[in-house]
């Protein structure tokens, strides 16, 4: 019996290592799922082997649970399997991951700098336009034609504003009416 157990344990260990090799190599998620399935079954076999050697019955529950876990795991993974690019199937080395992270960080910094430059440009533009408006206001009283234009512009703004306030008043009136109706019913 001892020879059978040792031989079986050795073969199970080899099989477990081989399953792990396949899980590492991939190349796709589904190959890893199959390897995981096999590994779970080898785990069940190992527990069964140990129970057979020491004639114990308390680990038998583990067999039931493990066989169910393997099933649920592989079904879940294959349910969500998607088309993956070739590059994603490989486990990256440490250098590659670091290079990728550095590139990401550089991109983030560039984005922050671009944002800052944009804000500064906007601020400068606002300052320039404010200064231009001031200059125009100063020169407007002296020159005749620009003053006329400024007055017309002011009038246009005024009429627009008036139209808007009228609209608001109408809306408010409607609101008041609709609010008034239920009061009458009461």
């Amino acid at each position, binding site marked *: 019996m001892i020879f059978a157990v040792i031989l079986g344990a050795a073969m199970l260990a080899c099989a477990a290592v081989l399953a792990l090799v396949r899980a590492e190599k991939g190349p796709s998620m*589904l190959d890893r799922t199959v390897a995981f399935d096999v590994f779970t079954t080898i785990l069940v076999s190992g527990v069964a082997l140990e129970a057979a050697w020491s004639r114990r019955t308390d680990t038998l529950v583990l067999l039931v649970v493990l066989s169910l876990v393997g099933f649920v795991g592989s079904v879940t993974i294959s349910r969500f399997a998607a088309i993956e690019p070739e590059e994603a199937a490989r486990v990256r080395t440490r250098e590659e991951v670091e290079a990728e992270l550095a590139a990401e960080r550089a991109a983030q910094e560039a984005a922050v700098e671009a944002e800052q430059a944009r804000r500064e440009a906007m601020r400068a533009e606002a300052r320039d336009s404010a200064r231009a408006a001031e200059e125009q206001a100063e020169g407007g009283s002296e020159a005749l034609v620009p003053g006329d234009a400024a007055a017309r512009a002011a009038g246009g703004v005024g009429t627009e504003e008036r139209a808007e306030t009228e609209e608001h008043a109408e809306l408010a009136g409607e609101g008041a009416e609709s609010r008034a109706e239920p009061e009458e019913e009461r």
Partner: protein
Amino acid sequence: MTADVVLDVAAGTFLVAGAFLSLVAGVGIVRFPDLLARMHAGTKLQVLGLLLLLLALGLRLRSWGVAGLLLLVIAFQMLTAPVAAHMVARAGYRTGKVQAESLEFDELTDDTERHDGEAPLDSPDAPPPNTGN
């Protein structure tokens, strides 16, 4: 030679056979070239290998309560292994892991092509349903 020894020898033989099948599954899963072949290798262990190992365990423990529990495990395994294999193969087919040229028969591709050739019932190409006037 008592019955105990006979049963122990039988249990040891089944143990070695089951472990050998798991080794075969491990070798197959590493060496086979594509997903379907690897699934084929993996199922050998999942059904026959586990069956042999649990049979050996039953022969070692020799009690009917244990035999019931082991039958439960085997029943679970036999119910779930085809379902899991079907799910994996289906996902593999849909995500393009199955190369058509590695297959002798490819009835699924034929079927889907034939089906895609016909217009589905709710498509605008289909004739309008008879409304009875």
